[in-house]
């Protein structure tokens, strides 16, 4: 009860700091939409101008064949639709960039603010526990990051309607899609934030911290690369396994963050 009150106290103040700052507010609202818009434009351009030629190219043939094997029957869909499907099925993975980038930015913003105001020392003299402080901060970054991703997913569905690609929805909103959104996205957001928390106190400034923590984006990009080139298709089972693996890494990262968040280093070193 007391822990919940203290975590909530941290959460509310963090959000107050983030959303009262114009740059931060624009970052959390505009960046996800830009990421999605960019992806949608690429999908549309490839399908519209590349069309049959791209769909039947050796680059995508393997991936399309692997996708078709992993999905309910795609009979009746022509080659361009298959290309659209292949690209649209990368978007749940591509949208993982949103929680990764937003959460790490919030983490570094949060820690940097405490450093600049030297407010951690008086906080550490209150009854708050280290894990409560870190969880409050992690949630304050993870929740907007997850929400932004879900809003983007909603916009993606709306975009498919606008482009009159609704007939593909059944092959896009698969079990893998829901697992990516509702299991992998929160796990990635939390991991990203925790890596930001771990990196921030060790970095000289926020940019350096973001550079360290942004490394989480590389595995996300690798996932897209693996799937779009047809090396592996992320079936629901595989997506579940990846999500669980990230959750395990989350737990390890939380322990590591609590362990590395040493009060002594913070009060004597953060000057």
């Amino acid at each position, binding site marked *: 009860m007391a822990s919940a009150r203290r975590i909530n106290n941290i959460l509310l103040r963090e959000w107050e700091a983030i959303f009262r700052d114009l740059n931060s507010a624009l970052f959390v609202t505009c960046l996800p939409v830009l990421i999605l818009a960019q992806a949608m434009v690429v999908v549309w351009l490839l399908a519209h101008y590349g069309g049959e030629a791209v769909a039947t190219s050796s680059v995508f043939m393997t991936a399309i064949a692997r996708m078709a094997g992993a999905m309910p029957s795609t009979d009746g869909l022509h080659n361009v639709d298959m290309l659209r499907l292949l690209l649209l099925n990368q978007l749940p993975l591509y949208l993982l960039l949103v929680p990764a980038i937003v959460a790490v930015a919030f983490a570094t913003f949060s820690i940097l603010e405490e450093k600049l105001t*030297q407010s951690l020392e008086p906080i550490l003299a209150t009854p708050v526990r280290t894990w409560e402080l870190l969880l409050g901060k992690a949630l304050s970054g993870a929740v907007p990051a997850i929400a932004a991703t879900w809003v983007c997913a909603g916009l993606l569905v709306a975009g498919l309607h606008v482009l009159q690609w609704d007939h593909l929805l059944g092959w896009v909103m698969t079990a893998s899609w829901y697992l990516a959104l509702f299991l992998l996205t929160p796990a990635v957001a939390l991991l990203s934030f925790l890596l930001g928390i771990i990196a921030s106190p060790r970095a000289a400034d926020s940019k350096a911290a973001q550079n360290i923590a942004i490394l989480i984006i590389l595995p996300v990009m690798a996932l897209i690369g693996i799937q779009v080139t047809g090396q592996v298709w992320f079936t629901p089972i595989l997506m579940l396994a990846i999500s669980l693996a990230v959750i395990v890494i989350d737990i390890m990262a939380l322990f590591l963050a609590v362990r590395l968040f040493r009060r002594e280093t913070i009060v004597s070193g953060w000057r």
Partner: protein
Amino acid sequence: MGQSGTAPLVQTSGLTKKFGDLLAVENLTLAVEAGQILGLLGPKDAGKTTTLRMLAGIIAATSGQARVAGFDPSASPEKLHEMIGFLPESPGLYGKLSARRNLEYFAGFYRGIDGSRIEAQLKAVGLWERREDKIGSFSKGMKQRLALARALVHDPVVLLLDEPTAGLDPQAGRELRQMITTLREQGKAIILSTHNLPEAESLCDRIAVVHTRLLAMDTPRALRERLFQREIEVELQKPNELAYKSIKDLPYVKAAIIDGCLLRVELSEPETMQPNLIATLVKAGAKIMSVTEKRHSLEEIYLDLLHKEADGKR
């Protein structure tokens, strides 16, 4: 038990802190009772802040024991933090939040603090009228007052104040000292670190001169008496060698020097022997213009202690 018969609210024994090979605090033993102010006086890097942080349970001691408000700071910091108020050297407030919101946030870590308590604290430090202003626009003195209100918002019994008036203008410093005096009257045990000698002298019941380790601890007056003999200065109307000779060998005179019209005398018992000294001088024909007791400033005491410590290390 302390001198007044009450158990000390802060008590340490052999408290030591090392950062790697660096010895920050060595074997510190002290005690502070309710309604007392103990000043930690020392130069920069003397271990004052480290001592306060150990007592506040923010960093752990390397060895030694401490009890603060009945709790071991390293064993149960959360319980301890309900009982202590800590004012760090830097106010550590959020510049983009209002004074009220800053106080509400920190109050949110404690149980049962409502709006009326926050209002009372803001009024007590004279910031109620500015409660909705962002503290980025506040002067250093106002920020320090707000930080003091934050340290007091949960009504702690022990206050740990790290250089509370550092960097404040004279008026703001005076206001803060008045507040600290009021808190002593309310019965709080207060430890404050400072390198401001007049502040330590005017504010503190006892002073602990520290330089990594404790060099001396007593009341300002007792420190003076312990370190310096009490000296009487007698101003004569004109130089009088005969008067000097009449007193220099008296049993209660430890030393006497004449320098023109000024006669300096160290007495073993100044209160009782000073009238005898004056009577002897008058009998020897001296015409006395004034008699004053030379008081050594705290600065002299402080420097003397540090010099002695430096000599001891050589």
